[in-house]
């Protein structure tokens, strides 16, 4: 039975600050255990946190890029739980007053555009790390403790593991693009915890939601989700209940197992952090960050319309993702027929991505190569129709356009050659020639078709048209096709 799938994600991205969120310790990754610590991040008695303004700045960047509303005045909260990697017995996070909320992130997959709503964004501190060793027992490394994290939670708008993969890739790209986070999932700099629920089509109630943890790569996210969807399906189909729980993904065994109950959180007893004053983010600060931002998609869309004189709708499509927009701009840097580039990318490039289930980043045809193809159209080496076929061959073979043209030949543009072929066609169709000359001009299309058939479509259409008229009517006539 087919089920509908609803996925939301909670992403934790380590921010690229030089120092930790509440103290001056370095955030360098991979140093010897407990060498990047101080009384503050170790939560010793009497110490107090002081908020790192750089972390706030990076969070503002991300919030702006994801079109979130940034709260002007917000308080941090304490989230209480006991665990040896959490030295204060609480994590400083945000609860009732999130950093930012109500954003969106749009992405393209298979040529379709999807928009995922961002529910909220929080600034918080990371915990330390437990290391379990057989001979020495459990050890704890606090180097990571206090590294700033940006928590980004989406609404459950994702509908498949593939979508989730693409969404995360897109989000990661934005965070990297803005230099907010390194986005390195393997190193745990970006962690993703999706929640999933299923329902039978037509039913109104969604099933119980479960959460997945310990996913260390985008592939892992996809695999984990596929596993969990299958597991939930089996339970639903056999009429068994789904428990609301958190499952841990085991990368090696490719299974997800429920967390031990003790590790699961009960009541976090959130309350406003009294050691920090409310964080006030004024318009001026936001504007300053805005000015330092790389161009955001909306602005880019407007610029595309103005600079490249393309239709707004096309600009919208081209700026759906930064990669697609970058791709377009790389192409038009080399090739100046903006309209051709825009149309081609929207129809042909997105078309083939959809057909082959790829993303623009996977495409072997680089912008330079696509521009190369356009040059061949422009200098009439190939026709637009031929170009479409050559493009498919480029995608499939990884070869450049001129390589393919060199092998299969370009347009036939030698006048003598074209004349020779036309003569042959006219000889073989003498009856039609008579009919044409007696006024049945619509037969022109028939002759062109015959020529193209004989040349595998390689004859230059403008040339064929002109020579045909000349040979049929005896005197050269300016046809609708004008020489460029």
């Amino acid at each position, binding site marked *: 039975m087919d089920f509908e799938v609803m996925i939301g994600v909670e992403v934790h991205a380590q921010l690229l600050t030089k120092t930790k969120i509440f103290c001056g310790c370095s955030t360098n990754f991979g140093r010897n255990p407990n060498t990047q610590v101080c009384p503050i991040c170790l939560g010793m008695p009497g110490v107090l946190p002081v908020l790192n303004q750089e972390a706030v700045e990076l969070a503002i960047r991300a919030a702006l890029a994801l079109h979130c509303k940034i709260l002007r005045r917000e308080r941090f909260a304490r989230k209480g739980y006991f665990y040896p990697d959490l030295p204060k017995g609480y994590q400083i996070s945000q609860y009732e007053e999130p950093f930012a909320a109500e954003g969106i992130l749009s992405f393209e997959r298979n040529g379709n555009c999807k928009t995922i709503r961002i529910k909220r964004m929080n600034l918080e501190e990371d915990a330390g790390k437990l290391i379990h060793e057989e001979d020495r027992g459990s050890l704890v490394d606090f180097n990571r403790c206090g590294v700033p994290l940006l928590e980004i939670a989406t609404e459950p708008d994702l509908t498949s593991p593939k979508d989730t993969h693409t969404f995360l890739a897109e989000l990661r790209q934005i965070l990297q693009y803005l230099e907010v986070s390194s986005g390195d999932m393997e190193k745990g700099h970006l962690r993703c915890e999706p929640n999933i629920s299923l329902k039978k089509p037509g039913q109104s109630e969604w099933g119980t939601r479960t959460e997945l943890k310990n996913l260390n790569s985008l592939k892992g996210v996809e695999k984990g989700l596929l596993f969990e969807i299958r597991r939930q399906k089996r339970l639903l189909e056999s009429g068994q209940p789904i428990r609301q729980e958190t499952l841990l993904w085991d990368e090696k065994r490719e299974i997800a197992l429920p967390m031990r109950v003790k590790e699961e959180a009960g009541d976090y*007893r959130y*309350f406003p952090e009294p050691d920090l004053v409310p964080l006030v983010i004024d318009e001026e600060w936001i504007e300053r960050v805005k000015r330092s931002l790389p161009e955001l998609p909306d602005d880019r869309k407007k610029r595309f319309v103005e600079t490249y004189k393309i239709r707004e709708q096309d600009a919208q499509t081209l700026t759906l993702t930064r990669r697609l927009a970058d791709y377009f701009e790389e192409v038009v840097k080399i090739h100046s027929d903006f309209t051709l580039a825009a149309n081609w990318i929207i129809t042909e490039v997105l078309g083939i991505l959809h057909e082959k289930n790829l993303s623009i980043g996977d495409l072997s045809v680089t912008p330079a190569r696509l521009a190369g193809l356009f040059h061949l159209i422009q200098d009439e080496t190939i026709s637009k129709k031929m170009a479409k076929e050559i493009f498919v061959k480029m995608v499939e073979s990884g070869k450049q356009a001129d390589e393919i043209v060199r092998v299969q030949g370009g347009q036939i543009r030698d006048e003598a050659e074209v004349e020779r072929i036309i003569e042959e066609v006219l000889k073989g169709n003498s009856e039609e020639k008579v009919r044409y000359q007696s006024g049945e001009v619509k037969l022109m299309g028939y002759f062109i078709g015959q020529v193209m058939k004989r040349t595998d479509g390689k004859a230059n259409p403008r040339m064929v048209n002109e020579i045909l008229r000349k040979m049929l009517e005896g005197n050269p006539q300016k046809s609708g096709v004008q020489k460029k």
Partner: protein
Amino acid sequence: MELCEQSAFVLHQMLVSKEISCREILLSLLNRIHSRDLNAYITLFEEEALKEAERVDQQIKRGEDLSPWTGIPLAVKDNICIQGKPTTCGSKILTSFQPPYDASVISKLKEKDCLFIGKTNMDEFAMGSSNENSHYHPVRNPWDPTRVPGGSSGGSVAAVASGQAIWALGSDTGGSIRQPASFCGVVGLKPTYGRVSRYGLVAFASSLDQIGPIARTVQDCALLLEAIAGYDSLDSTSLDRPVPLYSTNLKREMQGMKMGIPREFFGEGLDSKVEERIRFAIHQLEEAGVEPLEISLPHTEYAIATYYLIATAEASSNLARYDGVRYGYRTKSFRDLYEMQSKTRQEGFGDEVKRRIMLGTYALSAGYYEAYYGRAQKARTLIRRDFDQAFEKVDFILTPTAPTQAFKIGEKIEDPLQMYLSDIYTVSPSLAGVPALSLPLDIPKDGLPIGLQFIGKTLEEEKLLQIAFACEEMKILDNSISS
């Protein structure tokens, strides 16, 4: 008068004039400490202090300039961190804990060559009003050793009152400086929230805790506040406002000032002897030209409940870090992590601390948060507003510091609610974040001190000290010492 009974101000002048040495002051204090066991100290830095005194004396010999704080021995409450010194907070759970850092107030005092004599006894984690909740046993009231010195800064206050320290640092969350100051007959000030950095003060209730000075004279109290007040980049809640020269600007004309007498502070529960003395003090101030105005702080009746919800909620979170994982006490035998943490806390915390952790945990729990913590926050806003409105009409507010004189050791320990009511007049200013000072009135015939509380507007410590100083000049109070 022995040196240990002198004020810091006088001792400084004697040092400058080379009449005495720093070593002599210290020996006088140590003699008093060893001759009279009040259990005021948990740790004494005897040897180190003697070395430090030696260094100061060399400085004097060389004719170097002395700051008013140089070489004047100071006692520090044992919840304020001094680098490399045991900091127990009167708790078993911090056994052998030595902070690798100084509290910001300690750094400031070190810069001024202040001499630290030791760490004083206190109610465990500053939770208590009698000093009976110390793992290191109760402190005795120097005026009557069968009575409590008040709490939680009982050790600091008893030391100052008995000549075992010239002055001391305490901390005040809901009255922990003022109530014992009242019980032991010394001057104690709780500054405006944010006036003094909390960095290095082991937290009890973060939104209420303030470090403050304890001394035998108003001038010493002003001098000590001057040294520790001011903005600190390590404490986000500290106020970035200039620090007045409190100690040199103590004179003020009292004529024409308005004092508010809140009727809610003179009701049920106020001991008649205490009330009589306070009324007499009001009369004396009136004679001096201060205009009394009966005022109302209408939400006073909610103060104790509000305080015990907010303070316990914050405490339950602040004390979560004592889990035996990194420092301090750890239980001897356990099977797993969970058992190690719970047994450590079970064995390491005393009853009152556990009671408050449980209360606070309950108040913050899902489903109860709004009814308890949420409402307490709202009540706190109302209490704060009461004070704002009152200060539109009056220059300062005058109340008793505590409803009774010092009670007997053991008298209230079995009845937490009775104990909590000992803070009834001190918690309101704490909740409002405004400064308040307890000034000792002259000792009645029974020999037990009574304190007068002056409450001021935010950041008006200077005015409070000036008023207290004027009272001192008028001999409304008594700086006599219990020896």
